[in-house]
C-alpha cells in the first residue's frame, strides 16, 4: 500500500504540472463565464441595425395594426423596424415588385412584405428580404402579421377583438417534478442539470481515461517499466496510476467548483463594472446535495471501469495510432448515453432506460441522469452500483493479467488472439 501511495504521489505531482491539465482547468471556467456573460452581452449588442421594410397592403386594413405591434426598440432606444407603406402604382404589382427588388439590391431597404387582398381567403403573405435565415426575425414578423389578420377576421365576423383575444388566451402551464414525495424545481432546470452532469461525466471519464493510457504508453516508450517492476508489482503500478489520475480529476473538479461559486457570488458586481446597465446573473441552480454525492459515486466507479480498459490498451499497444480503433470500441458504450440523451431524459423510467442504467459501461452516465430527472427506485440505484463494483473487480482481474504481460512487449503490434493468450500466461 505504501508503494501504491508513492506511485500515486508521483503520478499526481507530474500530471498537475502538465500543460494539458493547466489549460483544461482554465478553459472550463472561461467557458462558464462565457455562458453566464455571453447572453447578457448578446442582448446588449443584438443587431444594432435598424430594419427598413416596405409593405404592400392590398387589403388596406392590415398595415396599421401591423405597425402598432412592430414597436421593438434597439439597445439605444431607437425604433428597430422602420416600416413604410407602398401603394401599387399604375404599372400594377409586377412593376412595384420590380422596383422594390431593385431597392433591396441597392440596400435602400432590407426587405418588403406583400399582403394580397385575398389574405382572408387563406392566401399567404410573402416576405422578401436580403436575409431570410434569421428565424427569430422571421417569426417576429409572422407573429405580428398573424395578429393583425386574425383581428380583422374577428371584426369581419362581427365580434369584439379584445374580448375574443381575452377568451382565447393561452393557459399558463408549468411542469413540476416530484421526488421523494416533495415538490422539486421546474422541469427545465432538471433537464439542464442532467444534461450538464452527463457531459461532465462523459468528458472527464474520456479525458482521464486517455491520460492513463498515454501515461502507460509513455512508460513503455521510455523503457522505464521494467525498472519500476524491480520494486513494484504490476498491479501496484496500474492501481497507483489510475488512482493518481483520479485524484488529478478531483482536483480539477474542485477548482471548477471554486470558480463556479466565485463567479456566482462575485460575478455580478465585477461584470457590472464593464457592462452598462448593471446585469442580473442567473441564480445558482439549486441542486439537491444528494445529486452531487451520486455524481461523485458514479464518477469514481465509471472512471475506474473505463480507465482500467484504457490502461490495458496502453499496455498492449506501443502508440496511440495502434490503439485508435480499440479506443473507439471502448468509447461506444460511453457515447451511447450521450447520443440517446434526449430519449433518456424524456423516458427516464422506460424499460430500455432501466436496462441501460444497470449494464456496466453505460450505467454510470445513464443512472446519474435518471436520478437527475426522476426518482428511480432505490433498489435499482443500489443494483446499478453493485453491478458496477462487481464488474470492476472482474475487470481488474482480467486486465491486470494482460497488463502484466503487455507492458513488457515492445516493438510489434500484437494481435487480439495473442492478447487473449496473455491472460493465461501468468
Amino acid at each position: 500500500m505504501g508503494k501504491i501511495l508513492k506511485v500515486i504521489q508521483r503520478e499526481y505531482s507530474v500530471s498537475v504540472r502538465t500543460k494539458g491539465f493547466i489549460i483544461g482547468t482554465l478553459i472550463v471556467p472561461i467557458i462558464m463565464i462565457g455562458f453566464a456573460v455571453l447572453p447578457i452581452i448578446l442582448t446588449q449588442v443584438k443587431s444594432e441595425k435598424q430594419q427598413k421594410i416596405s409593405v404592400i397592403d392590398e387589403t388596406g386594413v392590415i398595415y396599421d395594426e401591423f405597425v402598432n405591434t412592430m414597436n421593438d426598440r434597439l439597445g439605444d432606444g431607437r425604433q428597430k423596424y422602420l416600416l413604410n407603406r407602398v401603394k401599387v402604382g399604375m404599372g400594377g404589382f409586377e412593376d412595384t415588385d420590380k422596383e422594390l427588388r431593385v431597392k433591396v439590391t441597392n440596400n435602400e431597404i432590407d426587405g418588403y412584405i406583400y399582403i394580397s387582398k385575398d389574405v382572408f381567403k387563406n392566401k399567404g403573405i410573402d416576405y422578401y428580404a436580403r436575409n431570410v435565415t434569421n428565424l427569430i426575425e422571421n417569426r417576429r414578423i409572422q407573429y405580428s402579421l398573424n395578429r393583425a389578420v386574425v383581428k380583422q377576421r374577428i371584426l369581419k365576423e362581427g365580434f369584439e377583438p379584445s374580448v375574443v383575444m381575452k377568451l382565447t388566451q393561452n393557459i399558463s402551464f408549468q411542469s413540476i417534478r416530484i421526488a421523494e414525495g416533495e415538490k422539486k424545481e421546474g422541469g427545465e432546470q432538471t433537464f439542464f442539470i442532467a444534461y450538464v452532469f452527463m457531459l461532465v461525466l462523459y468528458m472527464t471519464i474520456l479525458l482521464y481515461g486517455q491520460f492513463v493510457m498515454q501515461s502507460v504508453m509513455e512508460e513503455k516508450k521510455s523503457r522505464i517499466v521494467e525498472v519500476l517492476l524491480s520494486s513494484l508489482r504490476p498491479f501496484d503500478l496500474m492501481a497507483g496510476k489510475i488512482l493518481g489520475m483520479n485524484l488529478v480529476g478531483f482536483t480539477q473538479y474542485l477548482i471548477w467548483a471554486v470558480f463556479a461559486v466565485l463567479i456566482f457570488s462575485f460575478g455580478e458586481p465585477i461584470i457590472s463594472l464593464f457592462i452598462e446597465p448593471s446585469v442580473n446573473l442567473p441564480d445558482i441552480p439549486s441542486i439537491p446535495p444528494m445529486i452531487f454525492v451520486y455524481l461523485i459515486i458514479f464518477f469514481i466507479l465509471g472512471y475506474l471501469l473505463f480507465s482500467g480498459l484504457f490502461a490495458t490498451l496502453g499496455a498492449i499497444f506501443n502508440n496511440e495510432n495502434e490503439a485508435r480503433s480499440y479506443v473507439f470500441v471502448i468509447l461506444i458504450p460511453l457515447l451511447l448515453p450521450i447520443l440517446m440523451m434526449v430519449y433518456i431524459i424524456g423516458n427516464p423510467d422506460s424499460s430500455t432506460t432501466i436496462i441501460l442504467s444497470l449494464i456496466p459501461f453505460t450505467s454510470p452516465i445513464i443512472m446519474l441522469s435518471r436520478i437527475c430527472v426522476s426518482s428511480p427506485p432505490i433498489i435499482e440505484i443500489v443494483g446499478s452500483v453493485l453491478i458496477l463494483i462487481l464488474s470492476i473487480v472482474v475487470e481488474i482481474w482480467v486486465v491486470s493479467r494482460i497488463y502484466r504481460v503487455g507492458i513488457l512487449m515492445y516493438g510489434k503490434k500484437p494481435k487480439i488472439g495473442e492478447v487473449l493468450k496473455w491472460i493465461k500466461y501468468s
Partner: protein
Amino acid sequence: MVQNSSVLYISGIIKKFGDLTAVKDLSLKLAKGVICGLLGPNGAGKTTTIRMIMNIIIPDRGEIKILGKKMDEKLKEKIGYLPEERGLYPKMKVDDLLSFFAGIKGISKNEAKNRINYWLERLEIADWRAKKINELSKGMQQKIQFILTIFNDPMLLILDEPFIGLDPINTELFKDIILELKQKGKTILFSTHIMEQAEKLCDEICLINKGENILSGKLNQIKRNFGKNTVIVEYQGDGNIFRNSSDIAKYNDYGNYVELELKEQVESQSFLKNIIDKVNIQKFEVMEPSLNQIFIESVKKSN
C-alpha cells in the same frame, strides 16, 4: 540445507510461451560474494530467466528462492535489478527521480538523502542533480540508471546486459564498483554475450542455449576441464608443417603466430619435440581455452 546457504537458488524452472519453451529445466545456485555470468547466444532465454528471478514472469514449474525465501515485495528491496530494457522518466528532475525510486525501494527519507548524495558525488554528477533527465548526456543517464540499481545496498545484484551501450570510461567505472560490491560480500548475477567481460569478472558461469543449461560451474574448473590442448607458436620458417601435421585437430593462422588445437592423445611436450627442428621457434605457449572458444564450441555441440 543447501538452499538456505545460497543467496540465489533456482531449481528446475520451466517456462513456456505457447509452443516455444523459453527455459527448460534450469537450475542454479549462487553463494555469497560470487560473481556469476549468465551466458548464452541471443534468444537463449537469459532475459526470461532473469525476469522469472525477479517475479515479473512466473515460471510454469520449478522453484526460485532468494536468501532462502520466495520472492516477495520485501525481498525486492534487497535486490538490485538492472533490466535489459531500461530507461528513466525523461521529464523528471534527477533529485525527484532518485527520491521517488528510493520511496518505492523502501529506503527511509533520511537514509535516501545520504545515499543519493554519496552516489552522486562518487559518480561525479552531483552538479546535475537539479536538471531534468532529458537534459543529461547519455553517459550521465547511464550513471543515474546505475545508481538506481545499487543505491538500496542490495544483497543480490541482477544485471541484464549491464555493459551494453556503455562508453569505455563508464564500463571501467561500473566494473570497479561491481568488484568492490563483490568484496563487500554481495552476490552478482549478470547476463552477457560478450565473453571478454565475463572472462574478466566471473567466478562462475552458467551457459544456456535454447533455454537449456549446457555448461555451468566455476570458471577456472571449466577451463581446466575443457582441456589444455591449445598451444600458441610464434615461429619463423615454413608454416606448412603445421597444416600437414597429423597431431593437429584445428589450425588458426594469425600471421605472426598460429593457434593450434592438438588432438586429444597428443601431449604438448612431444609436439614441441616434433617441430623444434623444423622451424625456428620464438615462443611456445600452452593456452587455456578462452571463454569465447568454450562458448562457441559448447553452443555448437548442443545445437
